[in-house]
């Protein structure tokens, strides 16, 4: 029973922890927090059955601000805790909150393997292309040339593309949204929550202090529609203020075309359920300056879920064999030393 509403239905307030939120004013994380607090009550999952696990970094303070179960763990390792928890308690809904440094640098290995195994967890990757908590060093997603406190002459590193990495990791659900696109984010979060298996949501997030407007080309209200491609399953890929532009495939290369020139029937049609991730990968490569940035669900396919497979093996074994500890003790050759009067003693 919800003391606030007097009903069993939970509200946003139920998910807000009493802790003061200590992110910088204007930080994109605040918007993501608000959407999670708004979305989770809509899932119909009891609050106590939700666990949020994070690593280290600004984003990883997230669990402190949610009135669910939570662990603020160590740098990069949140997916590993989530994995162990799901093996112990498959029925819990587990979220991992991570950032571009936490999830892709120090935790890159776990990120890859959690997705590959298809552990039933939801990974939210807050990507601000900078290390915020350590005050502004370049991150694995910082662009070449990014001038930061540790790259005063410009970063000389190739950035990693989180969506592409997730595809390479055989992820079954991959989406991208933006901190300030509240409605879009809410929809993506719901899809992520509903997906069975590992889901990755890259959230383009603004760090107002160290990397302000890093996503300006897609958040700027004046140019947003020119620079964003909203992915919709089964729909032709159109963008632009009037939807006048589209994406067409020319051989193996996508190209931006005017819809009137080619006709809508010749545009690429989004298929998030395609069995091969080729289309998703092609989309993951799109972005400025030549292409709009795709937002929405890149890929959502059904694959066997790790925790479920594990428990199936356990249940099958239990159905086949009694849980007889004594029989386990007696595996192999045994022999018996009879009671002797007086008794020998080892």
């Amino acid at each position, binding site marked *: 029973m919800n003391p606030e509403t007097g009903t069993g239905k939970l509200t946003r307030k139920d998910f807000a922890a009493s802790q003061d939120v200590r992110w910088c004013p204007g930080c994109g994380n605040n918007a993501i927090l608000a959407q999670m607090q708004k979305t989770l009550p809509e899932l119909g999952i009891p*609050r*106590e*059955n939700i666990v949020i*696990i994070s690593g280290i970094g600004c984003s990883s303070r997230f*669990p*402190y601000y*949610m*009135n669910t*179960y*939570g*662990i*603020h763990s*160590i740098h990069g*390792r*949140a*997916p*590993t*805790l989530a*994995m*162990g*928890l*799901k*093996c*112990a*308690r498959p*029925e*819990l809904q587990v979220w991992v909150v991570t950032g571009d440094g936490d999830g892709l640098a120090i935790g890159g*290995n*776990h990120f*890859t*393997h959690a997705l590959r195994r298809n552990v039933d967890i939801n990974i939210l990757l807050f990507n601000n292309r900078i290390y915020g908590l350590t005050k502004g060093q370049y991150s694995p997603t910082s662009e070449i040339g990014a001038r930061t406190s540790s790259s005063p002459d410009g970063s000389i590193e190739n950035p990693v593309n989180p969506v592409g990495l997730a595809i390479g990791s055989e992820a079954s659900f991959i989406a991208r949204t933006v901190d300030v696109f509240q409605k879009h984010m809410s929809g993506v979060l719901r899809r992520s929550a509903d997906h069975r298996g590992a889901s990755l949501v890259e959230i383009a997030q603004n760090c107002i202090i160290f990397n302000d407007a890093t996503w300006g080309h897609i958040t700027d209200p004046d140019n947003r529609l020119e620079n964003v491609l909203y992915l919709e399953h089964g729909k032709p890929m159109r963008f632009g203020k009037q939807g006048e532009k589209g994406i067409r495939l020319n051989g193996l290369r996508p190209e931006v075309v005017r819809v009137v020139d080619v006709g809508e029937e010749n545009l690429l049609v989004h298929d998030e359920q395609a069995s091969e991730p080729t289309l998703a990968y092609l989309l993951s490569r799109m972005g400025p300056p030549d292409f709009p940035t795709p937002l929405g669900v890149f890929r959502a396919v059904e694959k066997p879920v790790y925790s479920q497979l*594990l*428990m199936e*093996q*356990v249940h*099958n*074994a*239990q159905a*086949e*064999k009694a*849980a007889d*500890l*004594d029989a*386990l*003790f*007696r*595996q*192999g*050759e*045994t*022999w*018996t*030393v*009879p*009671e*002797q009067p007086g*008794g*020998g*003693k*080892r």
Partner: protein
Amino acid sequence: MSAAAKTREALEQVTILFSGDSGDGMQLTGSQLTTTSAILGNDVSTLPDYPSEIRAPAGSVAGVSAFQLHFSHQEIHTPGDNPDVLVAMNPAGLKTNLSRLLPNGVLIVDQDAFSERNLAKAGYENNPLDDPELGTCYQLHPVPVTTLTLNALDDLDLKRTVKMRCKNFFTLGLVYWLYDRPLEQSLEWIDKKFARIPLVAEANRLALQAGYHYGDTSEAFAVQWTVPGASNEAGTYRIINGNEAAALGFVTAARLAGKPLVYSSYPITPATDVLNHLSRWKHMDVRTIQTEDEIAAMGSAIGAAYGGAFSVTGTSGPGVCLKSEAIGLAVMLELPLVILNVQRGGPSTGLPTKTEQADLLQAMFGRHGESPLPILAAASPGDCFDTVIEAFRIAVRHCTPVFVLSEGYLANGSEPWRIPSLQEMEPIVVRHPFDPEGFQPYARDAATLARPWVLPGTAGMEHCIGGLEKHPPTGAVSYAPEDHEEMCRLRADKVARVADFIPGLEVDGSLDAILLVLTWGGTCGAALTAVRRARECGRSVAHAHLRYLNPFPQNLGKLLVRYEKVLIPELNSGQLALLIRGRYLVDAISFPKLRGQPFTVREIEVRIEELLS
């Protein structure tokens, strides 16, 4: 000469060493003799010694695989020092281990394997079998094992290479005759093992019998020895090694608490077999996770413990290095779980298949900050079972991660194990609070200082824990100086309180002796044997063995000051000695050994002699 003409002599004990190429089946031969001897009623103890390469170049010294077995009419605690018998299947096997054979020991060699090529591979310029001195120093028995095996299998339609592989059973048969062991156990094993390839089963059976009959009929072997059974405590027994004992202990601990077991691990020698065993026991509600790395294994262990499972991660020293940050998190989160370190020679990759006890200080201090946790160490292969169960009792009682130290020597070594009865074991009581009234995540039990182990899924108790310092008892993040100091004290006190619940240290021997030999881990057996032998020679010496290394038993300090001298033999450069000296200001004498091999009884005996004469 007929069998009747042979003499029989009784022996108290025998130490036999099988030495051959990695592909010669020495481990199998050794374990067969072990099981047969144990079933016969002997006390047994084994020491497998094999290279880390799966197949080093055949015939090379690097590829020598050895198995030492000590079987006795009396209670024994070690796999024996120097062997009385050496069975060398090739020149490399002879070269590697001949120096260990006792003077006038029995030396059986497969003379067929002493070809020019094999001699060269082993680095022999001349055939050592041609050296008359070999027959003077030892009871040399060159046996054409290969020829005799092939002859015995002449009628079988099998490839020569398959027949060659039966050599080890011929040798085993010969040793069975030499020590008057029955063939039945091995015959049954062969039938089971090769049930699907009856011809191979037949070949091995014939080879085993041929070896036995060769001993019986060959004039070369005039004496048959017997080693009568020991009088063990009544019960049903089996042979067990330390890794299987640990795996069984984990399953048992979970059963005693009615919990699922989650074991997350990354393959690493010599701990891998624990994972292999547990992955086959899913019917016991065991959930194994083979993680992408050691760090993930520790992270998963924390996640599983948080979810309420009995959670373990198993590894060896290099793995602990990688896990150490996450172990610190477990200390901070105060969650019950067990970390098993099957120690090997280090540092770095070190000696993967050789034993050492050099991770004690790593377990004790190998994390940043003040990060205490309880540490237990197993004393023998079978003791791994009891030690891991005890570790879980402590983990749950005090809501803390607990280290268990095993060793390659214990993990791979084996001994008879009296099969326990679950009914005789005390259940492990687990409490998960579910009343939100007044709940505080870091409130403490008055006696144990444990914090409550609240499970996610419990309504009304939602909370966040983490690696940041906390305000006691709310667990809210706090960097206040007084809170940090108080939390450090509480975490330390909690581990110290474990001493209130563990037995005092017992001494084997007199409290008024001059010398106390203090051991931990697998050094127990050799030290105990050495101390008892020294006492039989009238020496004033006692032995005490520490299962609990952090905290130490409460009476340890008082015991230590009773003795004029304290000797601490350990397979490291003096780690326990450092702790003992630092903690009790006792001038303990360190006896280090760093050779990748356990102490021999003799080594410790000699040191005792030196200290008391």
